[in-house]
């Protein structure tokens, strides 16, 4: 009987759950897995669902936990964070390396944001980030959570968090400048 409910929910909510998972992870593969895991977890603890909340709310809360696990797994994956070291961008005294100094981006901001080619380069540069940074950047932009909450979820210090963000941004900015403005 209860299983009938679950089947109904698969039919009703898969699409919305998938969209949410994609919004949070930007990966179709991960999103499909996450939605599947969500329903399996739901099947496992179906008897604990008392109907206090709507099934949709319940399923989304399971999915959100799965998404946090997914982020955490990615952050903990060892990456060579020193591979692009800060000294690529700054000298010993913390001044800009000559060739990495930000240049003028002459186009008007709004024009750039409306430009498909620019968006594509941004996407490409985003994909090129090491996975750990990528996860942090995504968490930062694609969840409405505060910095403190994200750190807590990922088990990292706030200093670590914005430093990762800082390095990611340095690399992103440089990548865009190289690809867009030197054409």
């Amino acid at each position: 009987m209860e299983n009938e409910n679950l089947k109904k929910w698969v039919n009703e909510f898969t699409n919305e759950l998938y969209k949410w998972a994609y919004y949070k992870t930007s990966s179709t593969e991960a999103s499909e897995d996450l939605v599947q895991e969500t329903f399996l977890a739901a099947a496992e603890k179906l008897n604990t669902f008392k109907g206090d909340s709507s099934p949709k709310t319940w399923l989304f809360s399971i999915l959100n936990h799965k998404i946090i696990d997914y982020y955490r797994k990615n952050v903990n994956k060892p990456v060579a964070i020193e591979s692009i070291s800060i000294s690529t961008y700054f000298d010993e005294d913390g001044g800009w390396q000559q060739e990495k100094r930000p240049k003028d981006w002459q186009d008007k901001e709004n024009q750039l944001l409306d430009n498909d080619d620019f968006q594509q380069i941004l996407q490409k540069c985003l994909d090129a980030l090491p996975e750990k940074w990528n996860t942090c950047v995504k968490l930062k932009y694609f969840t409405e959570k505060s910095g403190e909450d994200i750190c807590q979820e990922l088990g990292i210090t706030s200093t670590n968090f914005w430093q990762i963000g800082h390095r990611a941004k340095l690399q992103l900015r440089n990548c865009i400048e190289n690809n867009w403005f030197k054409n």
Partner: protein
Amino acid sequence: MYMFFLSCLKATELIEKKFHFKLTAKEKLQLKMHKMMCTACSKYEKHSILIEKGISNIQKSETPTIDVEALKTKISKKIEEFNKN
């Protein structure tokens, strides 16, 4: 006065920190002073804000369509398997 002077490395760190955490009064002042003197970091901040906007635009615009029906079938099968065990 030396306490007001930031390196560009520190200044750009504060620019990033500001997106998510409140800066202390001292940090705010340090950053403001630094940007007044340093065009490179002022540009960096503009670019950084632009990139932030760009990323959220990307995120809003695309959800690739997948075969949701296939996914539903796949999940339903998994649930059946699960219930058998």
